[in-house]
């Protein structure tokens, strides 16, 4: 086996993976636009989406007002979640870490619980914007707390423990609040915890793209130091990179991405752990420059399909997105653990 053929074969593999992901992406999106209580033919979809034909049509309104923003939101947030998972796995050099290990979703939930209960008298039905703002602020607060420790701890696994502990503290506070709250006051909270893309609007798509796309760009720009960081901090430092600044940058990008997901769709489980892994297995490499776009794209496809399943499986009853992602993601994680264990024993 000469080296050229091996490297050449890898390049072919990367091209095939990206091409198939793109094809899969378009299939998922079109299938998702097509399916629902009103079935729309592919021909109509293309006409309505690209030519904006038939403004007064029911299908036009269904696509432009309901389905398209929801799909775009799942594209953005699915990608964001998977990317933040990849970043946190790189950061901890642990392939089973997830973006919510830093206690971000628990922080979001706690703050949301506080706001919900405090404002129970003000609003009969909690406006979506307040839910989004409250959970984003909560995420950012726990992220700040984690950042405070990032500079101080020498050992990365210690940070992992701190993140998990912050999560427990937030959960304890949340549970305490729920104990003293009336059932009707926490409906909103329960709804949020399950996770859903159903609240999508063009407004939320716009806000999300303002957060997610720049974060994606920054992550991509960090791909060079990220690859050096994979060797360990000692080597990274000896190659002339500023490890401390890099660590903080990664925590911020990861935190902002997952906070955005938590705010707009709730704490969606498993995507952040499982999808980067699927991308890694497809590409057979962990090079950040390839993995960043691949895990984003893969996350988008995964979430669009999972959201489609959530909408359609027991239609007209809609499942929460986490139900679907967990059902698919959890077996993947178990399989990963087992196969990793086997590899280590060998």
């Amino acid at each position: 086996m000469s080296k050229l053929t091996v490297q050449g074969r890898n390049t072919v593999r990367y091209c095939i993976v990206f091409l198939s992901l793109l094809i899969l992406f378009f299939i998922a999106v079109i299938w998702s636009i097509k399916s629902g209580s009103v079935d729309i033919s592919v021909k109509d979809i293309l006409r309505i989406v690209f030519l904006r034909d038939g403004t007064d049509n029911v299908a036009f309104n269904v696509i432009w007002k309901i389905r398209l923003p929801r799909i775009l939101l799942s594209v953005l947030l699915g990608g964001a979640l998977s990317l933040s998972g990849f970043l946190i796995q790189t950061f901890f050099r642990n392939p089973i870490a997830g973006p919510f290990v830093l206690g971000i979703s628990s922080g979001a939930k706690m703050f949301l619980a506080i706001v919900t209960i405090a404002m129970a008298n003000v609003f009969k039905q909690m406006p979506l914007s307040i839910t989004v703002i409250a959970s984003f602020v909560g995420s950012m607060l726990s992220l700040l707390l984690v950042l405070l420790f990032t500079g101080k701890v020498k050992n990365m696994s210690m940070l992992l423990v701190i993140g998990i502990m912050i999560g427990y503290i937030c959960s304890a506070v949340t549970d305490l609040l729920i104990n003293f709250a009336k059932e009707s006051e926490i409906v909103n909270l329960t709804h949020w915890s399950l996770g859903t893309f159903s609240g999508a609007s063009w407004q939320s798509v716009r806000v999300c793209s303002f957060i997610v796309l720049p974060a994606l760009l920054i992550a991509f720009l960090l791909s060079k130091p990220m690859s050096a960081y994979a060797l360990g901090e000692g080597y990274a430092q000896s190659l002339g990179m500023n490890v401390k600044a890099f660590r903080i940058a990664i925590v911020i990008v990861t935190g902002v991405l997952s906070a955005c997901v938590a705010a707009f769709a709730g704490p969606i489980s498993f995507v952040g752990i499982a999808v980067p892994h699927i991308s890694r297995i497809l590409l057979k490499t962990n090079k950040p420059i390839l993995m960043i776009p691949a895990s984003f794209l893969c996350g988008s496809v995964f979430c669009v399909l999972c959201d489609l399943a959530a909408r359609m499986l027991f239609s007209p009853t809609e499942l929460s997105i986490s139900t679907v992602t967990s059902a698919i993601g959890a077996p993947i994680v178990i399989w990963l653990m087992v196969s990793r264990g086997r590899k280590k024993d060998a």
Partner: protein
Amino acid sequence: MPDIDKLPAKLELESLTVGYHGVPLISDIAFSLAKGEILTLIGPNGSGKSTILKSITRQLATIAGTVYIDGRDIHTLSGKEIATKMAVVLTQRVRPEMMTCRELVAAGRYPYTGSFGLLTAHDKEVVERSLDRVHALDIADQDVTAISDGQRQRVLLARAICQEPEIIVLDEPTSFLDIRHKIELLGILSDMAKNNGITVVMSLHEIDLAERISDRIVCVKGEKIAAYGTPEELFKDETVRALYDIESGSFNALLGCVELPAPAGEIRCFVTGGAGFGIPFYRALQKRGIAFAAGILPENDVDVAVAGPLAGKLILTAPYMPVTEANALEAKQIIDRVEFVIDSGCPTGEYNRANADLISYARENGKRIITTLKELSEVS
């Protein structure tokens, strides 16, 4: 400032104090190395070898003093400048996910590549050359987690070489390697120093290997450097014993052999040795815990290196001279008291005919004569 009289040294440490969190561990460290020289830090576990190396590579803040590279204080250099001058091989385990050896080596190009770390044709050529340098081209496409410790160490060295440094710092590069891989790795380092003018600073546990490869040696122990010099100056038995606080057992600096403590108790056996024939018997007796006497050996015999530290009693004669009457008598007196005698099979000639006489004497006196290790193993 570094000494102005001579050319700026490649690497120079000036009254350096190192330690963790501002607490000094070792102070007043000073040495200077020219291009292509090899310096080895030796010393017991936990003596601070790694701490010194980490301070040289800027992984650890120094407490006082200065490290100069080409006469420039390393703390005035940018991370990138340092990276093009100095590369490291660390003790920390490298377990990257899904990375081939070639990719790991290519990480060494970091200071030379652009914002996205893409490799140019020249970079790729350097990667191949570095892999070839450590004879690792055959494993280049294997996953880093799938290769052996010896191979991984060579690949890590290739990564350092790929950085095209002038100085390579290695922290215990031979740990976990078997003897063949140790020799192989140190051979590459020695070759690089001589032929490519790369300055090498490393820590080693194997004092015998350190002696053979190094131009200079620093003994690290206690709050100051215990000793610094060329191996010839330093490698006296006492230096090593003092450095490692060896109270039991011995280390022969000349031959580099390490012996465990001598067996205690009444002498039960006499060994006639010489020319290395006795050595396996001395070691076997040590393992069995049987105290023994050995002789009659010329002072310069290779057997003495092992029998010296292990034998309860050793009878020596002047080199290249026939055995004296007094020596022979002393040996016979010991034979009278022992349970058995070992004839190690050393050929006897003009100078050591006495040993053949001793065996005859023992036989006449009804002593059991053992000639093989197998027989010895049956002795209770």
